[in-house]
Structure formats: structure tokens, C-alpha cells
């Protein structure tokens, strides 16, 4: 009996690594495919192009994953990215605030949107899908209002965040995103907060009876998602050197896709930030590779759709021993 349980224990211990291993293999397959079919895919240029695109989607996906694990969903992230980038642009260019302050306020604007989502969704118990759908519309409207519906040029200052640090080859934004992935993964797996979020997503009633006040946690994940979307907006502005009220249209679907490819359940209670990050990488590699191949838009769409489905097929195959 004891021997048996140790064996099972070992399998169980590896299963987390294992889970992410499968997604990692999928990623490698994709890279191998593009390396074979596109001429200059395996170059430092491609790598740095991919790395510079990652940060915004990565941080947004971290927030989305947390929300999904808690059993919710946040459809407003795309709009909040646009809103926050608009706020940064406005404060810096029109009101002339110093950039760090403008950036901070932009992130806070995202946090406010998240707070509204959180209050309506957790304390008033409105269906979070609809609340964040409302915020998707309202947030975009605000972004248009803030920018006067025009792209605002911010200039090279803000871009320093998105440009590779000399000698290191990666940008501060990427380092920040990577650090957040690690922090979020540890928070989810190694802190009381993470446990509670998982417990609430897995069975809210049972969580309540176990003495967990569910509202503050449900609200907190939405605020975190809002703040991270705000940060995503800042990163987007840094990447573009401009704030674009039309930025990040449909980003919510990419973020959800990345999270689910990475093993997060839409039913709540299960998820991995590292997996979600691998999901982001898959999406980025796919977009890059297809662009380098220069295939036509319809074919790009078809392939993207197929890869999304294949990724979860692989995931399904894994979890069915």
C-alpha cells in the first residue's frame, strides 16, 4: 500500500510539470514547423520581434487566468487596455504630467474599471460575463472620449520601456511581464490568496462554509485583472509610442484562448499561469510565423482556428490517460 501510494505520489508530483510539458512540446512543434518553412525564422531578429510583442498580452492573460480560475471571466480587458493607454497619452501629452505619474494613473484607471466590474460582479452578484461585456462597451467609449477618437502620438520617451536593454537583448517591459508571471504563479499555488481563489472557483458554497469570505476575493481578482489590463495598456502605448483608442480589439478572446490552451478551465478552480504564458507564446509564434510565410488572410484565419483546436485536443489527449 505504501509503495503503491509513493508511486502514485511521484506521478502526481510530476503531473504539474507534465501538464505544462505538453503545451511546451506543442510550442516546440510549432517553432520547428516555422523554422523549416520560413527562411529566416530561427534568427535573433525573430526572437526579439516576438519578445517585444509579448508583454501586453502576457500581463493581460495573467489577469484573465486568475479571473477564470476564480470561476469568472473578464471580457473587458481589451477595452481597458485601450482606456488605460488613452489615459496615459492624455495625461502625458495634453496635461504634461511626468511620464511615470501618467503611467501610474493609466494603470490605476484600469484598476478602477476592474473595481467597477468587481463590485457589480461580486457584491451585487450580477453575472460577471454581462458586467464585463457592459464594461467592454463602456470602456471603449471612454477610450474614444479621452482621445477624441484619435491616435495620440506620445513620442520616443515612453518607448524606452519597450526597447531592448543594450547587452541584454530584452526590454524592461518583457522583464516585468516575466517577473509578473512568476509572481502570479507563486501567488496562485503558494499563497492563501491563491488557494482561496481556487477554492471559490471550484465550489463557491463549500468555500463559504469553509469560512472564506468570497466577495472580497472575487472582487480582488477583477481588480487585479483591471490593473494588469491597465499595465497592458501602458505596454501597448510603449510599444507603439502612441496611444490608440482602437487598440486591443478582441484581445479578450486571445487572452482566454491563451489561458485555456495553457490548461485553465473555463469552469473555474483549475489553472496555471505558466501554462497560460506558454499559451501566449504559442499565439505569438503562430502570428509571427504566419506573417513571415506571408500567407493570405483567409488562410491565416483558418490555420489560427485549427491550431487553437489542436492545442486543446492535445490537452484533452493528455488528461485522458
Amino acid at each position, binding site marked *: 500500500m505504501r509503495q503503491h501510494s509513493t508511486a502514485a505520489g511521484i506521478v502526481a508530483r510530476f503531473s504539474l510539470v507534465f501538464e505544462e510539458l505538453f503545451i511546451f512540446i506543442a510550442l516546440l512543434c510549432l517553432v520547428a514547423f516555422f523554422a523549416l518553412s520560413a527562411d*529566416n525564422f530561427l*534568427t535573433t531578429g525573430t526572437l526579439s520581434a516576438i519578445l517585444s510583442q509579448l508583454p501586453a498580452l502576457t500581463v493581460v492573460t495573467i489577469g484573465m487566468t486568475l479571473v477564470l480560475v476564480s470561476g469568472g471571466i473578464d471580457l473587458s480587458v481589451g477595452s481597458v487596455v485601450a482606456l488605460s493607454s488613452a489615459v496615459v497619452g492624455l495625461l502625458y501629452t495634453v496635461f504634461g504630467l511626468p511620464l511615470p505619474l501618467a503611467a501610474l494613473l493609466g494603470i490605476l484607471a484600469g484598476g478602477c474599471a476592474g473595481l467597477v466590474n468587481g463590485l457589480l460582479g461580486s457584491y451585487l452578484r450580477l453575472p460577471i460575463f454581462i458586467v464585463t461585456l457592459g464594461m467592454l462597451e463602456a470602456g471603449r467609449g471612454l477610450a474614444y472620449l479621452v482621445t477624441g477618437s484619435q491616435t495620440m502620438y506620445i513620442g520616443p520617451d515612453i518607448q524606452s520601456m519597450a526597447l531592448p536593454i543594450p547587452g541584454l537583448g530584452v526590454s524592461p517591459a518583457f522583464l516585468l511581464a516575466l517577473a509578473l508571471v512568476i509572481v502570479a504563479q507563486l501567488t496562485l499555488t503558494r499563497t492563501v490568496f491563491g488557494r482561496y481563489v481556487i477554492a471559490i472557483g471550484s465550489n463557491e458554497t463549500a468555500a463559504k462554509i469553509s469560512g472564506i469570505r468570497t466577495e472580497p476575493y472575487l472582487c480582488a481578482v477583477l481588480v487585479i485583472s483591471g490593473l494588469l489590463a491597465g499595465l497592458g495598456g501602458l505596454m501597448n502605448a510603449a510599444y*507603439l509610442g502612441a496611444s490608440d483608442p482602437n487598440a486591443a480589439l478582441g484581445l479578450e478572446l486571445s487572452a482566454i484562448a491563451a489561458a485555456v490552451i495553457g490548461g485553465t478551465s473555463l469552469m473555474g478552480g483549475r489553472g496555471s499561469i505558466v501554462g497560460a504564458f506558454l499559451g501566449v507564446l504559442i499565439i505569438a509564434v503562430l502570428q509571427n510565423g504566419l*506573417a513571415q510565410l*506571408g500567407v493570405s488572410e483567409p488562410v491565416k484565419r483558418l490555420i489560427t482556428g485549427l491550431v487553437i483546436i489542436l492545442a486543446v485536443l492535445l490537452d484533452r489527449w493528455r488528461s485522458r490517460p
Partner: protein
Amino acid sequence: GSEEGGDGTEADSAPPRVALVMKSLANEFFVNMAAGAEAHQAAHSEAYQLIVNGIRNESDLAQQVALVDQMISSGVDAIVIAPADSRALVPALSRAIAAGIVVINIDNRLEPEVLAEYELQIPFIGPSNRDGARMVGDYALRGLPGDSKVAILEGITSAFNSIQRRTGFEEAVAAAGMEVVTLQSGEWDQTRAAQITSAILSQYPELDVILAANDNMALGAASAVGMASREVVIAGFDNISAIHPLLQSGAVVATADQFGDQLAVFGIEYALEILATGIIPQDRQTPLELVTPETLQAN
């Protein structure tokens, strides 16, 4: 010359690689542009290689910036770009130029101030959307009574072309001494344009003219007008093939052709010229043509 691309531009056997970066490849205008470029390449296959890319969504700047970065990293020799935004693309293009890539701007002009800030000189080739819209507007409004009421359907509010065309339309209306009763965004979309037009028609029983910033919205407006059995003069922009039957039937009176299929070809030829000679040529405005039932008949 380009260091990292490997195949240099001077004196070697491999033909140069030109990347055409457009807005949405899901839009007929850009599809035609791509088709024109591909036909041109097929006819000059020994002269250059072509990679065509567009973004998913006309307004997704980040994706277009990413595309430029990807083209830099895949080592192309020239980029011909129809920027989705006149400012936000400049930094990325400056990276391309720093990497030794020749950049040509088509369709939508990059902001000269920002170019100056980055100390760049990127030649522009393309039509003036504003002049084109003014031309279409003038034609649509000619001969109408001076108190006619006009509605304008613009595209995505922040889009450069949308702003240019809206301005052109507004100039035409002002010149005719008429009134714009409402200006709304149909977001370039047919269905939305039809829905908005329906609403406008009931709100303004006296409406006489709808100026739409692209043909898709003109199509939508025409179907809403038909459904409401009203007489409204409609004009569009772009000269897509689906508008022709409506021009013939008179449901739409005019549109503008910017010869999109040639636009990219001009850009590519310029790029090849620079690659060969190293001389940066001047900006060039490409022609725009008013398309009306008569001109359609003539062809």
C-alpha cells in the same frame, strides 16, 4: 546595405525581397492591391521576391507594428507599407531604416512632423482621399436644391482615411451651401451602415443625400433606403465591384477609384529603383477618378 539579412542587395544573384505591409487583407481594396502587386511580381519574377501581409483588423496598430518588426527580422530589403496610423508606425519604420531597409509609404501619408522628429525621409505615394471625397461630394450634390439635407457616414472614427474623406465631404457640403444634419460612424461596415441609415431616415423625413466614406457603407445605406422606399442620393468611395450594379440602377450616384491595384505596384517600383540607385525620389500623388454611371458605361 543590410547586414543581417544575409543576402545583400548589391551585386549578388538572389533577387531582392520586398515586403508589402497593408491594412486588412480582408478588405476588397487591399485585396486588389495585393493582387496587383502579385501580378506585377509574377511578371517580373526574376527582379524581386514579394511577401504580402495584412493585419486582422484595420485598426490594430500593434499588430501592424509587429508585422514591421517581423519583416525586419526576416531580413527583407524593402518594405512598402500602407500604415494603419500616420503616427504610431513611425518608430517601427525608423527601426527598419536603421536596419538598412528601404521604406516606401503608400495609401495613407505618415505625419511629416513625426517623421521630422525621427529625422526620417520616407517617400509617399498615394492619392489624396480628401480631394477624392470632395470630388465625389461635389458630383453628388450638383444640381440639388440649396436647402438639401445631408447625412455623412464615416468609417472608424479615428482612421486617417475616414477623417480625410469626412473632411472632403464636409467641404463639398459647405461649398454647396447645404446642411449636414447628422454625422455617424458606420465603422466601415455594411450592416451597421444599413441600421444607422434606417434610423436616420425615420428621424429626418426630409433627408436628401447620404455620403458614405466607403462603398460597403454605401451598399448598406442603399439597401436601407430601398427598404424604406425613399428617394435619397447616395455616394460612396473605393469603387468596389459590388457597387457597380447599384451605380447602373442609379441607387448610388458616384464613387471614387483610387486604382488600388496599381498603388502597391508604384510603391514596389519605387523601392526597386531606390535599391538599384540609392537615390530617394520625391513624393508622388497618384490619380483618383470619379466613377459615375456614365463613366461605368464608357468602360
